[in-house]
């Protein structure tokens, strides 16, 4: 299909990109991997006056070790996340979630940061970012600022990112040695989740020392299952304890509420086993 006319800009640094955003005004849009934005443009659901393509900003790609945490460049593709050893060792949940994103073509183009900024509550990467206490590092006209995931996701397709700001890095604390699992229910492989549950669990001496659980597509943004997390801490890593805690994932009787409970139980069971 055919998008409406737009101006195309290709900055060579983050600062230049920020300057371009300011110059082009509110109707300009950053394009990263384009896997969400391009379909929207093609269907003319959006018609930005300018696209600022940050695909040339190589400083935004790759994963770095930053002591107690990892720094994931916003332009790191899903494919790169899947194959990164630091992520494998210290943020296994992210790799497992990323494995389920769309299809191989999309994973080669789509970016970690782009998915977070698009903020589709059915998108896979929001729930683990929230569960793992990720912090967004944002560049704007007045410098850098940091926003925790819990404050970053505001509503459907809405983040704390200002119109003149760019997400450049995501800081993820290390979860070395934690078990993890992403339990996703979708109707066909390339469909969005009906509901999915991202779980990371730290087991020590047969009992659960800590748990991080995020739910995909049960609200206007990712949802942290704090009641389940707290119910698990100190419990033995048994099927009974997990089943009891998983019931706290949701209290309603809708289909999605049921899925939240069932899939939380399954995600935790697999995370503990893995």
């Amino acid at each position, binding site marked *: 299909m055919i998008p409406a006319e737009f101006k195309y800009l290709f900055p060579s640094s983050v600062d230049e990109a920020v300057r371009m955003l300011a110059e082009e005004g509110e109707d300009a849009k950053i394009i990263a991997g384009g896997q969400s934005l391009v379909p929207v443009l093609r269907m003319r659901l959006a018609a930005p006056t300018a696209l600022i393509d940050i695909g040339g900003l190589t400083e935004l790609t790759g994963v770095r070790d930053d002591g107690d945490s990892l720094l994931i460049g916003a332009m790191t593709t899903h494919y790169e996340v899947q194959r990164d050893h630091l992520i494998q060792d210290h943020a296994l949940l992210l790799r497992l979630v990323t494995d389920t994103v769309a299809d191989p073509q999309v994973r080669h183009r789509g970016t970690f940061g782009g998915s977070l900024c698009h903020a589709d509550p059915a998108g896979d990467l929001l729930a683990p970012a929230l569960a793992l206490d990720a912090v967004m590092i944002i560049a704007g006209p007045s410098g850098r600022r940091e926003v925790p995931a819990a404050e970053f996701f505001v509503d459907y397709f809405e983040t704390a990112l200002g119109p003149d700001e760019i997400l450049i890095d995501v800081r993820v604390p290390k979860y070395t040695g934690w078990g993890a699992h992403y339990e996703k229910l979708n109707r*066909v492989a390339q469909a*969005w989740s009906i509901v999915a549950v991202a779980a990371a669990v730290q087991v020590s001496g047969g009992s659960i020392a800590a748990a991080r659980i995020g739910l995909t597509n049960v609200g206007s943004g990712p949802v942290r299952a704090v009641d389940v997390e707290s119910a698990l801490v100190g419990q033995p890593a048994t099927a009974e304890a997990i089943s009891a805690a998983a019931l706290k994932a949701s209290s309603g009787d809708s289909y999605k509420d049921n899925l939240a409970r069932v899939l939380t139980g399954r995600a935790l069971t697999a995370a503990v086993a893995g």
Partner: protein
Amino acid sequence: MTATAEPEIGKARLRKEDARLITGQTRWTDNLQLTGMLHMAVLRSPVAHARITNIDCSRATAMPGVAVVLTGEDFAAEQGSLPCAWPITEDMKSPPAPAMAVDQVNFAGEAVALVIADSAYRAADALAAIDVDYDELPVVLDMEEALQDNDLVHPDLGTNKCATWVFDSAEAGSGTNVEDEIASAEVVIERTFRQQRLIPAFMEPRSVVVDPHADMFTVWSATQIPHILRWMLAAVTGIAEHKIRVIAPDVGGGFGGKLQVTPEELLCLLVARRMGRPVKWTETRTESMLSAHHGRDQIQKITLSARRDGTVTGLKAELLADMGAYLRLVTPGVPILGAFMFNAIYKFAAYRFVCTNVFTNKVPTDAYRGAGRPEATFAIERMMDELAAELDMDPMKIREMNWIKHEEFPFNTVAGLTYDSGNYEAATARAMELFGYEELREEQARRRADGSAVQLGIGISTYTEMCGLAPSRVLGALRYAAGGWETASIRMLPTGKVEVITGTSPHGQGHETVWSQIVADRLGVPFEDVEVLHGDTATSHKGMDSYGSRSLTVGGTALVHAADKVLAKARTLAAHMMECDESDVEFAAGSFSVRGTSTVRTLGDVVLAAHVAHDLPDGMEPGMDADATFDPDNFSFPHGTHLCAAEVDTETGMVKIRLYVAVDDVGTVMNPLIVDGQVHGGLAQGIAQALFEEAIHDEMGTLTTATLADYLVPCAADLPGFITARTETPATSNPLGAKGVGEAGTIASTPAVVNAVLDAVRHMGVRDIEMPCSPERVWNALQGRAADASAPAAGGLGSIDSQGGQS
């Protein structure tokens, strides 16, 4: 010329067309670039039912690159009405079907204005600048409500009822009276099934280019039916048929969705005539889903009568079929094609079929892979399972009791057809063996006893269908406007190479490969020496095109006859050349010889002699070309047994197909690789109806599944590995013994899957689940909750802008 060593027929040849199709070396309609070409973009109604009170084109007309903006008013005098070739009854209501709405729109997606511009981009830009005022009318969506005639789709018709078509075995003399059978039955089962609306979703969007030059119009279109299209364009526009040339170049899929004379084809032609310049239109995916015809959409009320021993005595099918807003090429006839298939492979004493066609404010329906037959097969195969459950009998046992035995062929059915051949026992035995039926039943019992969260179900579909559309006299009797013959020509070139011209119009089937195999065998020429020409009315001047699994059984037979004509003439000339009596001439492996001698002339020698014509027998015309047209005496009847093992996760409602076995009897197989491909693709589409696909409209009549993110076409990752096998009972109605395979997988698989799903959860109190059996529907059924057909869920370009089919 060298003879082929082993028979071509039966060989798993790679398709000769594939290299150009998959490497981008072919030329699709949208690839055509003509000098001075204009581009057409279509503005479509966002509302389902409204009067058009005003259209303001002034802003759009002034935009850069725009040549003209046209509305229905501009075409009112010349656009006529799009053709419906199948008036199923004498009193059928048929509303005018303008290519572009003039003063009223009747479905969301109907064309209301065109922009003609110097680029596709500028044409698309200008669409947004056209202002249309609509005065909305009540929207008619539900068939049962439509029949109350409170609000009318077409007020001038006075009713939403299009037609009622009846077959009754007592009246036809093919069986007893079904009401008597029901009244005296030991068991009566009544069920209502919904055949959801589907979208054909061919891969290549529709595209049209029209080039007017001098007084000729050349029309390229991504169509299944170039010959019918030419005829109909002439009939609708009044342009003389010999001044229209239609070319269907390589076409990327159709599934019946391109068996149509579309508004856009007609509009491109009219615009090209008006502007005197070439015009191109290529649709977007969403346009395709909003305006290309849909399929299925029936409500089936089925009554089955039986004895307690499992013998079925009668079947009554009462259907409502949604036409949508207009009757397209064969819209009203699609459900009627199913009328002959509800009795399937069984011997029922009585049968009655009543179908009421209904207008609604939705996209018109028309042929979609199987066209009427999948609906019929679904209904009867579901009913056989219901009867088995009611009588607590094994569902395969109950089928065996009722089916036609192999020694009973040819068999005259209660629906009035004659099945020429078949062996249901053999196909079933093979399928049961490949499936491991008994072991799976044991596992099922174990899981039920354990109360396992994941239950196992086994689904059966023992199907037949009618292919090879169609004997012309039958089509005439059914009031169809055309014949069902097919034609083929063979041109023997002086170097011994062969050109085949076929009236069929392949759009993915592999005709070039199989037609070459047939000719190579028949004439003893190498496979590589045959070129197959198709889809251009200038080279292939007549034909009835491709649909209804007809191409091989009808078109392939015409080709055999043409080859035999070539050989007959060649034999006469060979006898003349070898100075012997024709009765002493033998033909084998591409060479003629005189019986008992070493005298030989290859076919190439004879063709060259015919071409130079220096020494021909008296009265023989030069050349060795031949034409043949074949009109079948009967349909062909593929059959088979499909078995599906499905796991149902009772906690989430998710269905997973664990094992799928398809044993098909499609008669003699020309190319097993192509047959397997057809079966795999057919299974995917049939399973998609069972589990994934559904066109959903909101209460305003807006299609909410208008992208492939909302309309869930499965991919390879969503389907199991299929186990396919074949039995071969040759058709007796054509010399190839072929029965057709284009639709079999689609027809057979839908009930196999749904039967498996229900078999998994029937012991938990579930008796029916509407298609598609989505996880939410299955879960709701397990909770004893009513299915909510339109539960909004995540989809589209995110989770809030759509109420599509994601959950």
